[in-house]
């Protein structure tokens, strides 16, 4: 097997005080286990990508973090306190769990104005965040029933940013955003983290978050299957090799004692340095069309191996899409 299972890469050792701590979190609904013994933490100044197929337990974990669900066991804390014990939660943690969960009859500005009253921030702040997310002017005066999903996501981000929080918890914020919008959101989250903020965002699409995340936490079937810094997870995981005759290539690598697993499309992933792979292939006289260090394929392969059992294959395809 290409990766051990379950794998845990310890990232950022030595940073003492995590802002978000999920500790042995388990959530059961009757006999069904939605989240099982999930633990990870998020440091200030970083973006954590929480990645997994639909139904893997991402939303349940995030709902437990912000007090909307009660864990069966384990804890989820912000700066050492349960969310429900925070004095004014919205001023400390900006939350966007479902952009569709807003009253269709209210205008964008009205939604923000209501939240601003609760948070105790002025109307100027409402204008500021509307400008920040690109909804100032006419869009702010439209009712949400007339908003596209992308506009709702922007409004949800505006709501999350309204209280000028130190922490952002976002569930699938890129859903419905166009490529330009996703690029914009990455910049916004990167800037937030670079100023000392802590970001935890989930996605079922690897490419949406790999560009912005410092740390990746991968969940499948309610369990953490991999976590660590993006570099650790994505880099140095063998060599991708491709040739006109896949079977011949496979035999050549087997003969050299190099472990091989299926790669993306018709490629193979060899668990060895490029030099060793090249030597093995040359010795066998096999033709190559591609030979390079495996990059994102490492993580893709991880998904395939860890979540690729029967029934979840389609979900894995979604993650890798």
């Amino acid at each position, binding site marked *: 097997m290409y990766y051990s299972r379950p794998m845990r890469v310890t990232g950022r050792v030595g940073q003492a005080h995590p802002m978000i701590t999920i500790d042995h979190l388990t959530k059961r609904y009757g006999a069904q286990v939605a989240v099982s013994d999930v633990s990870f933490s998020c440091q*200030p100044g970083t973006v954590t990508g929480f990645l997994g197929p639909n139904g893997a337990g991402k*939303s349940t974990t995030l*709902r437990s973090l*912000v*007090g*909307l*669900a*009660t864990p069966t066991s384990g804890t989820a804390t*912000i*700066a050492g*306190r349960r*969310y*429900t014990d*925070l*004095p*004014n*939660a*919205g*001023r*400390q943690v900006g*939350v966007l*769990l*479902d952009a*569709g*969960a*807003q*009253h*269709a*009859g*209210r205008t964008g500005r*009205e939604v923000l104005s*209501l*939240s601003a*009253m*609760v*948070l*105790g921030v002025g109307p100027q702040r409402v204008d*500021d*965040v509307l*400008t*920040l997310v*690109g909804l100032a002017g006419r869009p702010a005066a439209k009712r949400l029933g007339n908003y596209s999903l992308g506009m709702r996501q922007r409004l949800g981000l505006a*709501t999350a*940013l309204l209280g*000028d929080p*130190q922490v952002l918890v976002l569930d699938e914020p890129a859903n419905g955003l166009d490529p330009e919008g996703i690029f*914009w959101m990455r*910049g*916004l989250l990167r*800037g*937030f983290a670079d*100023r*000392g*903020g802590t970001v935890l965002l989930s996605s079922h699409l690897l490419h949406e978050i790999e560009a912005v995340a410092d740390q990746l936490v991968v969940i499948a079937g309610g369990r953490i299957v991999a976590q660590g810094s993006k570099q650790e997870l994505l880099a140095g995981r063998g060599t991708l090799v491709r040739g006109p005759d896949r079977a011949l290539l496979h035999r050549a690598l087997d003969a050299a004692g190099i472990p091989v697993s299926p790669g993306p499309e018709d490629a193979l992933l060899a668990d060895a340095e490029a030099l060793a792979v090249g030597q093995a292939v040359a010795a066998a006289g096999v033709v190559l069309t591609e030979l390079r260090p495996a990059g994102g394929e490492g993580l893709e392969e991880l998904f395939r191996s860890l979540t690729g059992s029967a029934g979840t294959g389609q979900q894995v395809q979604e993650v890798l899409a």
Partner: protein
Amino acid sequence: MSTSTLPVDQPRPVTGVTPPSLLTLVRVELRKSYDTRAGRWLLVTIGLAALAVVAISLFVDDAPKTFADYFSFTQLPVGILLPVLGILLVTSEWSQRTAMTTFTLVPRRSRVLTAKVLAAAVLGVLGVLAAAVASGLATVLTPVFTDQPMDWSLSAAQAGQVLLVQVVYVLSGVAFGMLLLSSPLAIVTYFVLPTVFTIVVNLVSALDWVRDWLDLGTVTQPMFEGELDGQGWAQLATSAALWIVLPMVIGWLRIERSEIA
């Protein structure tokens, strides 16, 4: 797009921020009751219905023409429609799924629910005030359109009991909303269940005691004239326990414990 317009200080302590006051939360809930088209039209309809009722009693010859009479009549549309606003105050959070935002901003759910109960009571008082304005208008116009003089007399008992009965009705709506968490289900149940209850307890003579002690409609009838007496207060308490306290307690506990999704 630039993110530089958002000043985020360097790591700040997660302390020193005060939670929103109950008064703030009540103001937020009141605003939620009229900032949607449904809410605004319901309020406008209540006002128009009150005006329609006084217009009818003004122009129907044998209807009594004092302020107290107008005031009593106008309570009918207010008492029917205002509880719907109380129901929506709770159920729209679930029907429109805004509960997610509401309870992440204020994770202590009982504070939100308390604010909703207080906001509903305020709406009840405002409904009575609207009825009083419509009644005042009709009283002023009485000498113009009829041969009767203006009669402004209103007993303190009637004013007080009318205020109380409207608050009781709107809180009953809130309680049904909390119990059922669905706008259509709560509205239908709120109107059908007490009506069926009233019909049944009036048909079966063996159930007279139920009618006298547990039927909110029967028990509150004298309050519109300010005529609730000693035993009536006790009967109001037992009926309110069945139609307000019981559904509200069950619904409240469920909301406190349930998962918001």
